[in-house]
């Protein structure tokens, strides 16, 4: 967005205002009886704990760093590969969407069963990094100005030359946009495994240990530290991305505004689509079973797709398992939907309001931009501290993980109306409100669905983390309980079912999005 010195100054001013209000509210114990400490207390505590931090920080950063690097290399490789072999991309689409939608926390018990030491943390970080980096690489490498490719081919070049001289370089801004999301993702993945216990060092371990002792100032200190790390990595990759984007622009070569979605299936007939769908679904199941076989685990512990179906339907305690699963789903899904809805609604309303008051809007936007990449689920203990171990806490967590990314998506759509259309309206004397109503709003409707698609899996993740850490309800709790009872079948079942629902939610929204998109595209 517009990043002039003016908006930078406004952002700095509003940051200062926020800090002052925070200090006052904390000092006067206005929120939740002192669980919201003033900044001075948080920093004081951070200083007192200074000898504790290095070991925790080092453990977390090491796993997150390894996971980030390995995950990025795999993801960039896959993105380039998929851009060249479209059919393979389509067949692996199910795997990609699964990695996008999976509520990471359901993988924690599974990874802890299968691996020792820091491996579970590194693997979850890799999984968290994979999807955003793979998709942004794929899109960046694929969507180049076709004339640049023709220049290469006319000069006697091959597809490899096009890749070497154009695609890889043109994709850099997009790849960095993916890395920018992947960095905080890796941190989140590592902290989630640390929540799962079993390790002595790590920010997540420290955070969880401090939750039990009820020390707000320390909890906030850890939360803010994790947030700053995420924000710094976000900032660094943003800077690189912006640098490469600037050097990719010249006013005649129009870099096509890159689409955020994978290819649609419009080119295929109904039957072909069905076949591709089945193929990509089977690939997921095949990889699941294949991974289990590779890890060489006991079949009691490791359950493949068939074992899960057996556990639920033909096993001795199948009926009981189904009952527990359904009642947990009944608790989790409504909360996820409610949280998602409120998060989207709040984002939409705020984006509209701030569009009418652009000065406030441009001051708020950088906050939202950074906040969307914060390891918000890792802040769950703070929210639990303030709102208690209640349903309210769950909803607040869910709203907070969906709000920021949705706001960013919608605000960008609102501000990207074609200037020509706005000029026409203003030429007829339209007021700001009318421009909003006739031009910006209709354009932003589609972005509401895009925001919903991106936020839906996060909503499910938010609810499950709150359930797992705090409220003792729903799928998150069922998973945790099953771990304690060594009920391996249920652990895998909860994982499979929650992935299924997350994928269903994104697919339904993405279908709606496509239908509406087709209607509005000229």
């Amino acid at each position, binding site marked *: 967005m517009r990043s002039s010195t003016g908006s930078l100054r406004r952002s700095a001013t509003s940051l200062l205002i926020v800090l002052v209000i925070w200090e006052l509210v904390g000092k006067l114990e206005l929120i939740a009886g002192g669980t919201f400490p003033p900044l001075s207390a948080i920093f004081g505590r951070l200083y007192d704990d200074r000898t504790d931090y290095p070991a925790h920080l080092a453990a977390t950063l090491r796993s997150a760093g390894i996971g980030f690097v390995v995950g990025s290399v795999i993801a960039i490789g896959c993105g380039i590969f998929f851009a060249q072999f479209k059919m393979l991309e389509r067949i692996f689409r199910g795997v990609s969407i699964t990695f996008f939608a999976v509520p990471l926390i359901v993988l924690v018990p599974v990874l802890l069963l299968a691996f020792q030491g820091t491996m579970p943390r590194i693997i979850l970080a890799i999984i968290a990094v994979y999807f955003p980096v793979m998709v942004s690489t794929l899109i960046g490498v694929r969507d180049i100005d076709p004339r640049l490719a*023709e*220049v290469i*081919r006319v*000069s*006697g070049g091959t597809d490899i030359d096009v890749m070497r001289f*154009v695609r890889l370089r043109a994709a850099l801004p997009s790849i960095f946009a993916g890395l920018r999301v992947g960095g905080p993702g890796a941190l989140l993945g590592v902290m989630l495994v640390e929540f799962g216990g079993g390790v002595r060092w790590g920010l997540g371990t420290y955070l969880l240990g401090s939750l039990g002792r009820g020390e707000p100032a320390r909890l906030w200190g850890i939360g803010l530290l994790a947030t700053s790390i995420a924000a710094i990595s976000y900032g660094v990759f943003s800077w690189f991305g912006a640098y490469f984007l600037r050097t990719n*622009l*010249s006013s005649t*070569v129009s870099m096509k505004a890159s689409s955020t979605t994978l290819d649609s299936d419009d080119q295929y007939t109904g039957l072909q689509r069905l076949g591709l769908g089945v193929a990509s679904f089977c690939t997921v199941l095949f990889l699941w079973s294949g991974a289990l076989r590779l890890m060489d685990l006991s079949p009691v512990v490791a359950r493949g797709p068939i074992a899960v179906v057996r556990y639920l339907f033909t096993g001795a305690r199948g009926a009981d398992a189904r009952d527990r699963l359904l009642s947990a789903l009944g608790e989790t899904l409504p909360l996820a939907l409610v949280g998602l809805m409120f998060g989207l609604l709040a984002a939409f309303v705020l984006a509209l309001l701030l569009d009418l008051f652009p000065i406030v809007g441009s001051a708020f936007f950088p906050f939202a931009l950074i906040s969307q990449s914060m390891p918000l689920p890792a802040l769950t203990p703070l929210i639990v501290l303030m709102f208690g171990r209640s349903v309210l806490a769950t909803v607040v967590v869910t709203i907070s993980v969906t709000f920021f990314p949705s706001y960013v998506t919608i605000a960008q759509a609102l501000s990207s109306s074609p200037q020509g259309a706005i000029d026409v309206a203003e030429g007829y004397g339209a007021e700001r409100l009318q421009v909003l109503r006739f031009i910006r709003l209709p354009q932003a409707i589609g972005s509401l669905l895009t925001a919903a698609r991106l936020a839906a899996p996060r909503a499910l993740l938010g609810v499950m983390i709150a359930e797992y850490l705090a409220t003792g309800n729903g799928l998150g709790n069922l998973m945790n309980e099953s771990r304690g009872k060594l009920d391996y079948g249920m652990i895998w079942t909860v994982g499979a079912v929650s992935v299924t629902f997350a994928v269903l939610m994104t697919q339904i929204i993405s279908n709606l999005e496509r239908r509406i998109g087709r209607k509005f595209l000229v």
Partner: protein
Amino acid sequence: MVGEKLLKIDNVSRSFDLRGSLVHALKDVSLQVPVGSFLALIGPSGCGKSTLLRLLAGLDTPDAGALSVNGVDPSALRKQGSIGMAFQDPALLPWRSVRKNIALPLQILKRNLDDYSVRIQSLIELVGLSGFEDAVPGQLSGGMRQRVSIARALVTEPNILLLDEPFGALDEILRRQMNLELQQIWMKQRPTTVLVTHAIDEAIALADSVAVMTSRPGRIVEVVQIDLPRPRTTEMFRSKEFHAIADHLSELLFTHASA
């Protein structure tokens, strides 16, 4: 008996499937011009002139018929680096400097860049961009970028130069200026050149022969020889001969467009 060296287009047809209906972009097009001459293709939008140019560039293949220059087919010419091409959009790599953009075809052909530094520098001077060697496209005006793309098309000393409305996006004044500069460059090197254009005056100013095309299906109506002396000058744009040819061409274009 050895025949004259020719650019030959022999009964070429090319059609496209547009949402289920077949569009004949080119139907049975034949044309011959001597190697080393300058041919302009002129016609309304959709008459297949750009398609014909893409076939000559080896970027596309005909459904029927054949194209060759001196007996060699386009895709073989392309791989030898014998073709230089410039488009309406300069299509420069935005992250490369002027010098490196011009060097791109040499890199693709895996030639040793050190051997070409003098040639690149003289091309930069030829297109009037001395002092801008290290500028990137974003720092150049539209006309300057277009000159870079023409220098890039010339860097391999191509036998064939293909120009797809290279000045279409420029204003009238700049376009005429660029036409005369292009003529200068062409007279020095004499590559066989095919220029696609909408503009009658541009075709007359540059070409030895102008092929007038019409649409649905795309075909050549008439090939008009331009016997004006070279170098052609700005005064010539106001001459009687120039206007006579322009009138003839526009008559051809408009008669067939309304038919």
